[in-house]
């Protein structure tokens, strides 16, 4: 009888999870083994045909590479900035609430709005970046139109947007650290840097793991800005995996190939999460 009661309690959440997470994932996997059907040519089983196509698709490798660079470029920097900001606004300083709020504001803004603002920052000649550079006599640069700079420009924007969000987690973690530790360190004559490296940072490890997982997922799942800023261009220089999936699914209507790409993305994220949880967790907790 107790079992029934337990299952009943579980049902609402289970229905939602199965209906919106597990079933679609399984269906995506199944779809990736079929060709895309049209009214004239119905869908049929093609085994690993879509995967063979994927291995030969230069755009897929390009966007995958872009995505790895994008993750590498944004995650460490935004985490480092988040810690720095958190440590700073955790201290007693004038107008502390205001400073905290200022750091957090980018997080509150919708990505589409942020992208529209940054689009004008990066616009050659009339944009903020170029107007600032013009003060020093530097020539205008076509930031988003140059394959060499476009991805870096997107990274800067995303770091600006994400760092404040991660700061909140670090701030919460810092406030739960016992103040005795700092006092003890002071009595022992430890420098601030030594205290941070040996005490504070290790104690923040669980938060870092959490933030790391989130940041990794975000770097693969945040593509809103591409719609506004570059549409993946020039020549796919700024396209990311999820944006490419969107193009394949809704602009090319190749749902089967989009499913295949989605399976790859899911596998990638699942793999990363496993590595993070199992390997990193062993050294996360301060002993």
């Amino acid at each position, binding site marked *: 009888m107790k079992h029934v009661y337990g299952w009943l309690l579980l049902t609402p959440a289970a229905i939602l999870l199965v209906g919106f997470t597990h079933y679609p994932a399984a269906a995506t996997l199944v779809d990736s083994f079929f060709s895309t059907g*049209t*009214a*004239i040519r119905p869908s049929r089983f093609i085994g690993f045909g879509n995967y063979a196509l994927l291995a030969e698709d230069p*755009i897929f490798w390009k966007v995958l590479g872009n995505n790895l660079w994008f993750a590498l470029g944004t995650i460490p920097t935004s985490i480092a900035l988040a810690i720095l900001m958190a440590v700073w606004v955790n201290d007693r300083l004038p107008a502390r609430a205001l400073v905290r709020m200022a750091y957090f504001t980018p997080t509150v803004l919708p990505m589409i709005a942020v992208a529209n603002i940054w*689009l*004008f920052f990066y*616009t*050659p*000649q*009339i944009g903020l970046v170029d107007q600032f550079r*013009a003060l020093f*006599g*530097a*020539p*205008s640069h*076509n930031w*988003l*139109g*140059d*394959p060499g700079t476009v991805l870096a420009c997107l990274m800067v924007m995303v770091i600006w947007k994400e760092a404040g969000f991660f700061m909140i987690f670090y701030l919460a973690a810092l406030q739960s650290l016992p103040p005795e530790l700092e006092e003890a360190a002071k009595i022992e004559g430890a420098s601030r840097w030594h205290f941070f490296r040996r005490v504070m940072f290790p104690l923040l490890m669980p938060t870092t793991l959490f933030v790391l997982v989130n940041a990794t997922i975000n770097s693969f799942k945040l593509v809103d800005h591409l719609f*506004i800023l*570059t*549409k993946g*261009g*020039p*020549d*796919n*220089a700024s396209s990311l995996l999820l944006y490419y999936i969107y*193009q394949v699914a*809704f*602009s*090319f*209507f*190749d749902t089967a190939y989009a499913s295949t790409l989605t399976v790859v993305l899911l596998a990638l994220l699942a793999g990363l999460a496993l590595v993070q949880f199992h390997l990193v967790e062993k050294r996360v907790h301060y002993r």
Partner: protein
Amino acid sequence: MRSLFALLLAGLLAAAAPARADTELTFYYPIAVGGPLTKVIDGLARDFEKEHPGIKVHPIYAGNYDDARIKALAALKAGQPAQISVLYSIDLYELLEQDVIVPWDDVATTADDKAWLKAFYPSLMMNGTYKGKVYGIPFQRSTIVLFWNKDAFKEVGLDPEKPPATWNEMTQMATKLVKRDAAGNVVRWGVMVPSTGYTYWMFQAFARQNGHDLMNPEGNRTIFADPDVIAALQYWRDLGAKYRVMPEGTIEWGTLRQAFTEGKTAMMWHTTGNLTAVKDTAKFPFGVAMLPASKQRGSPTGGGNFYMFKKTTREERKAALAFVKWMTTPERAAAWSIATGYVATRPDAYETPKLKDYARDFPQAVVARDQLKYATAELSTFQTGRVRKLLDDAIQAALTGQKTPAAALQAAQAEADRLLKPYR
């Protein structure tokens, strides 16, 4: 008194019970330009209902062109279909392949209806016709035009009333119009052509001017690697790389209008859909001209057509015909053109007093019409999304100097051949 009350009651009852069932028309439509256009469309639908008792029209705003197509197709699959929709003119082959649309010729059978099908500009019908049958009725359609800053022309000693008519003239004028500061940095460019978002569309204009369309009318063959087409891309690249009258790299579609109204470029190529916005924000006198010619003038058309879906009853098709005919009368085409900046879709719309008056005060409004006789269909093939992206990527690779125009276009052509082979 009592009899009056009975009469009223009887009247109310009669009003409450209609004699026959209404025909209901649902249609999705996209909006791709600014302004409160949903209100305009809703108003038009109400007016139509007043004149046609027995037909109810439910217009549903569906976002941009891609969203509208996705929503209309999803509604169809879900069994809540729309009877007609305004969708991207270049979605034709996609809709044909899904086998969801029927030609208007099937319902337009009377002499009057057939005359109606012939009333539009022929160049606007190209994207809507397949194997001699009309699937798309032009509704909101645009072309590319050249905007120029008359003050900038005056400043460098050019005739402010004379825009460039050929590529050579454009290059020469643009070279004069480039302005540099003391340090040698450019503060005003000669000309800008956007190359994000609708890259293929802009390129079609260059290719057409150099003598070529980019695809065949059957939509199963592309012509990207022709020497004239390669030369057209070379010229576009040269504007930035050789003549230095345009910034190198790609130019953002969305911010170009500001660059022009802020005086950072003396000329720009852009859609007529921007006309009203430029008119409202430019602080200098500006002109609108047809695009310059190389071997000939040319511009692709763009925009949305009315399609009729297959899953419709005979009554619904009749009602749909009545509605679309009503929406495209010369008077309404004229009013829609004034409200949006889109081209009025038929010649007789430009003869209406309303549009004649408007054009007298604002002659820039009729340039797009004059250009229609040189216009060509927008790039549209089977597998259109993929083919378009191939071309976009090739153009951007050439403009950013990663590939030569010839190498980029030949690779795109080879890939397009592979995609389109099954359709030949």
